[in-house]
């Protein structure tokens, strides 16, 4: 009797021991499993912290190459409205500064912050059968308004590498179409397929530290204090970079000099 | 209080045991009771169907391991293990070519206590080894000498049956090893004299000039395989032989074998 009881007890214990769930402890959840998957957008960037600035000029050395006039005979309206327009690839001011050069920060800004795009849209106008402005910069998700100020058919055909291509036809004078680019991207062209000479260049950024040298050849960008990599980009002469550190309240000077490359 | 004490004392294990042993049910099941005397021991042995197969008394010589190696007993034990594990395997093994191989895989992978398959296989190897050792021992101890020649003959037949059981069982996993081994083995049957169509004398067995009786579809090999090649018919045939036919014959002969030993005075009694 005793031995039988002992046997039964041993068997029961065995079964229970075998069934007892051990093991499986070497596994663990991946990082960030609890966050629920939403991409953190980070705290918003406060423009008031941009107490410093980087400023300078884009200089041009040597003689500016001659820009030939554009043949606009394909469209009688353009022949009239855009008479005398020259190509805009290289435009140098009287004091030897290069116009229409993009200047922007590549690194050094806080990438953990969320930079809201400006509410005001960028306007790309078509007047006299050319794009105005010829070079501009914008932020991702910022609206861009294409306006046709000419009384002829234009189309705006943007050629980004990463964003969706845009090709919008505007037949009526005064028409405006609004769109935006959702991904930050380096410089790309915008062309008109009807008038092949028309072109414009833009770049899309995920931060507000960008500008162009415009008509004057000078630029200035307000930034929070820190060390930055500054890049200048010109449609013909390409890219130049420089590094600068700026403290609060100060203005750091950063100028670039381009010249026509020797043949 | 004292009534409680009485009650409790009546419930003591000893009293309880006694009451049980005196009950009608107990006495119906256990006719003889606890064997405390020689006579009772003998009665228990003779009165129980399982025990009465065993001799009441065993000579001391019968437990001489150095004499017997206990090989016969081990063989029989393995036979029982194989029967039991084989029976359990029959629940999960289907002897058709669609299922045989994958059922064996399933037994290994997924069936609870599918380890029965491994035990069955190892047991079969062990049984063949122990059968040979047993034969060797019997020879060495001269236990085949008169009047035990008949038993030796029965033992030889049992050896053949054991090997046949191994042979038929080998095919059942239906893998490459099984199929080709049986192909080789069954091809030997082709060469049987007279009964094999490639053996000597096969074309002597004809009815008249040109009615051959022994051909590839009517010879010993065909009988063994149930066909001309090792296929689904062979598998089924081997399965039936392995699970029913051969064990029955072996069991029958084992009964004869064991009885003969008892009759000749018990295991390893003096000649």
């Amino acid at each position, binding site marked *: 009797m005793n031995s039988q009881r002992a046997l039964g007890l041993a068997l029961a214990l065995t079964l229970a021991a075998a*069934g007892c*769930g051990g093991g499986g402890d070497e596994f663990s959840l991946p990082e960030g499993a609890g966050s629920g998957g939403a991409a953190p957008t980070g705290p918003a960037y406060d423009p008031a912290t941009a107490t410093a600035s980087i400023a300078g000029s884009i200089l041009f050395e040597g003689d500016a190459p001659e820009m030939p006039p554009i043949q606009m005979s*394909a469209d009688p309206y353009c022949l009239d409205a855009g008479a005398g327009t020259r190509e805009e690839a290289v435009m140098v001011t009287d004091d030897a500064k290069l116009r229409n050069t993009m200047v922007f920060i590549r690194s050094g800004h806080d990438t953990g912050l969320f930079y809201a795009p400006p509410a005001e849209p960028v306007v790309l106008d078509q007047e006299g059968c050319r794009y105005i402005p010829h070079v501009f910069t914008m932020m991702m998700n910022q609206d861009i308004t294409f306006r046709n100020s000419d009384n002829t058919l234009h189309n705006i055909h943007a050629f980004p590498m990463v964003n969706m291509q845009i090709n919008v*036809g505007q*037949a009526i004078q005064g028409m405006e179409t609004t769109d935006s680019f959702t991904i930050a991207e380096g410089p790309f062209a915008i062309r008109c397929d009807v008038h*092949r000479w028309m072109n414009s260049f833009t770049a899309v950024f995920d931060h507000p530290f960008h500008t162009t040298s415009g008509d004057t050849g000078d630029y200035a960008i307000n930034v929070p204090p820190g060390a930055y990599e500054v890049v200048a980009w010109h449609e013909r002469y390409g890219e130049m970079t420089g590094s600068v550190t700026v403290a609060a309240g100060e203005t750091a000077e950063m100028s670039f000099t381009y010249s026509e490359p020797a043949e | 209080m004292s009534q409680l004490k009485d009650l409790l004392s009546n419930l003591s294990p000893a009293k309880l045991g006694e009451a049980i042993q005196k009950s009608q049910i107990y006495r*119906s099941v256990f006719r003889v009771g606890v064997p405390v005397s020689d006579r009772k021991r003998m009665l228990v042995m003779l009165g129980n169907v399982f025990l009465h197969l065993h001799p009441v008394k065993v000579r001391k010589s019968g437990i001489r391991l150095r004499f017997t190696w206990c090989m016969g007993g081990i063989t029989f034990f393995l036979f029982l293990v194989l029967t039991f594990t084989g029976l359990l395997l029959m629940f999960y093994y289907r002897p058709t070519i669609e299922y045989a191989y994958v059922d064996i895989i399933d037994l290994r992978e997924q069936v609870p206590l599918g380890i029965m398959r491994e035990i069955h296989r190892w047991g079969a190897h062990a049984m063949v080894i122990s059968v040979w050792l047993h034969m060797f021992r019997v020879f060495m101890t001269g236990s085949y000498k008169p009047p035990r020649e008949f038993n030796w003959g029965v033992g030889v037949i049992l050896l053949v049956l054991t090997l046949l059981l191994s042979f038929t069982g080998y095919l059942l996993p239906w893998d490459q090893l099984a199929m080709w081994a049986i192909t080789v083995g069954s091809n030997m049957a082709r060469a049987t004299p007279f009964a094999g169509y490639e053996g000597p004398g096969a074309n002597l067995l004809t009815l008249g000039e040109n009615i051959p009786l022994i051909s590839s579809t009517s010879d010993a090999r065909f009988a063994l395989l149930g066909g001309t090649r090792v296929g689904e018919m062979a598998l089924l045939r081997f399965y039936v032989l392995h699970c029913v036919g051969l064990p029955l014959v072996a069991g029958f002969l084992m009964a004869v074998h064991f009885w003969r030993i008892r009759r000749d005075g018990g295991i390893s009694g003096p000649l």
Partner: protein
Amino acid sequence: MSSETPNGGTPKPAIPPPAKKDPALNISQRGDRLYTDNGLHKWFAISSLLLFVFTVWMIVDDYNREWRRYQRGFTRLSVLQTELDRQAAAGAIDVAAVNALSAEIEAARVRIAENAATLSEVESRLEALNDEFYSTNQAYLFARAEYDVERYDYEEAVANDPENAEPLRVIAENRLADINQNLEDVERLQIAIEETTTELDSYIGERDRLSSERDGLVAEATQLEAAIVTLDPGLIRTSIRNAPILDFMNPSETVNQIQLQNLHYDAPFLQVPRVDRCTTCHLGINDAAKDEWQQPFTAHPRLDVFVGADSPHPMDGFGCTTCHAGLDRAVEFSRAGHVPDNAEQQAAWEDQYGWYLDHFLETPMLPMDRIEASCLKCHTGAGDVPEAPALNMGRDLIRTYGCFGCHNMPGYEEVRRVGPDLTTIGGKLDPEWVKKWLADPRAFKSEARMPKFWFNSNNGGPEFEARNNAEITAITEYLFSRSQDDPLPAAAPAGGDVGRGQALVESVGCLGCHAVGPIPDDPARTQHRRRFGYNLASQGSKTSADWLYNWVRDPRAVWHDTNMPDMRLTDAEAADVAAYLVSLTNPEWEAEAFPELDEAALDEVTLEFLRTGSTGIQAQEALAEMTLEEKIMTTGEGLVARYGCFGCHVIEGFETAQPIGTELTQPGSKLLNQFDFGFLDIEHTRTEWYAAKMADPRIFDVDRVKRPEELLRMPDFGFDEEQVGAIVMILTGLVKDQVTPDMRNDLTADIEAGRGLVAQRNCRGCHEIEGAGGDIRSTIADQGLWPPLLNTQGAKTQPMWLHSFLQEPGEETLRPWLSARMPTFYLDQAEATVLGKYFSAIDNAPYPFIDTAIATTDESLTAGRELFELAQCNLCHPAGDQMPDRDAADLAPDLGLAAERLRPEWVEDWILDPQAIAPGTRMPAFYIDGVSQLPGILDGDTPGQLEAFRDHLFLTIGNGERAEDN
């Protein structure tokens, strides 16, 4: 038998005294009984104990499988994850709202309590009504049943016994009246019940609604909480339900399996349905939320393509092992056939899992770099397999390099041999060039497709040099002696301009199939379709300007079976191109001279051939009597047969000779023991063998001692690692698994045939078709000058027009701005039809009969003209005789062709969103998100405007047919 029974009977004499007291009977002193021997007890006890221990051990060991450990780990992780989710959900609950609702519910409850008496009265009233309704309804239904009987009786009476019919009619009518009365009662009760229910609801309904609203707010957190309890009901419960033996009832740890009737595993001698048990451990494989969990729980990549319920390969229909191979029924890591991807992973697995390679498994899992091979089982058609770039490259490589010429391969029986026709070799080449070429084709041009037969790893040593040269000389002389040189059709005119020729070659479209020199990789697209035609480098060192002139002018006249189409070059253009090509020379090559023939080496080779079929002595005698010429011819012919040159080239006398290579019918299923690894120290797996072989086909001769005629013969193609991988992918994928037609991807025969023809003629060298192709784009910088994208071609063009265009592309100039020309491919009717059907099939467009009549109104036609002017289409598009004042490079397609060429429905789709059909097109979009940018006409109604455009295009500009006004 026993004379003493305890069950009653006559009392028996007393029991004799115990045997112990009688020495004669004393057991331990009699000497022949051993059952009191303690030794026996000892051994018995030990063996019993051992048996018990081993039995317990067996049960426990059999029970403790590794998959249980994984399932427990997964449960634990799931619980943790659910807890985190629950916390997040709980944090997201709007506590204020919940509290407000709770307050309202409490108020409602109070109100109910206040009205308890009324409420119970209403409830009991409702209950009574329900009871009454039940009985009344029952009476109604019974009455109806009775009526059916009585009516039948009446009707039968009318038919068979008219005299006695009247009473029955009366009965039936009375019953009908009863029924109507019952129905009224029932309906009255129904209305009463409704009213009472509404009344009841006015008391308790609000509370219920508020309750369910509050439950809704906390629903997510509550559900997650319940989920946690379900996942992990506690250690004791889990242990009991999963205990050995007890787990037959309701275990939480189970083997999971997917049974597939239509996909088979190749068990010995039979295909059996697969039973995939992978999901026993791979528990998170179909859960997108687990894409970052660690193995084995991680989700499958690309659930939209594989495994997901909405994918083309859902898990329940396809399982796992049909793609990954391995033993489907296994639930243990090594036995399932997991194969590491590289040596580091192998070391990690051996360490972590005790991994070993189960060498009894015929189909171990595919390493991940060969996983595309499994696609081939079902995707057997001619077209590209989506998501399988290496596989597609492999297929193209096999078609380009012509493996099927020497090895029988399924699917390539009808394809032409890939090498040029050698029956006219004398008209094009000279023997010196051919000898140098045979010795090392890639020294002539790096992109040479001709493989190298001599100076390889097993016959490259100095001892082989004389022999190799002798063999090459013999073959060359033999080929030239059999050459039939027809004279070339025309002589090249003098004065071909090299510069113009180069410009032509680079712009007219040659570079879609050809390249000049090495082809640089382009990360944006494949370049292997530019290997379809032979590389054009060094042509000047190879052949004459005459031959090149004739060739580019009319390829078929020179070689009837060529794949090269007719570029419709004028004679002057052809001369320019010939001049350019002949200017491409390889001076290094020309400077080398081929060594003189070594007669002793030639004798050695000739002797081998003479020996077959005769004794050595006879062979020596025959050799002594042969002239040099005879030796060369015998040897040349024998070597052509030995090396199997006819596998790629047409050679006179060998047109029907059998290919010499191993059959490649099921290379992916070839048993491992049938591979000869030789002395090469590589992993003994199929993929490793194939990879080693493709990288250097002679490698398995390393360290072996062989007679020259026994050496391995497969030539060296100079494949790089990527190409080797692609070809090995195909070889691994050709398996003996038979997939039933219902499991294959179902492509109609039209699409299959079309894809086959497209691959055969290399259309994708220039055009992007079905998402792939356009290799020529890498040579054209301006996107506007690319050959057109053939997306929606079937829906776009009219079948008759397309048919005639494909046969005669030069008839009309569609795109004047393109310098590339669509070549004339000499397509016959059948082939043009195949293409027409193909394009229509992939776009689900009707073929070949369509209705181009357009139903329209005058208003639409007028609007169309206005739209046309407003959008200023004629700034870029010629329209009939109206030609814009622009360079040809700036023109758009001629709209006058549209009525005959385009399908009307397509034109509407095009104008609505050109970028969707042809991304990068110069056609501007006048509709942004469906909103018209041309307001004022037809009130800016987009569909109306599109129809107006169409009408103007087809009916006003073109002379399309206007449908009858109904």
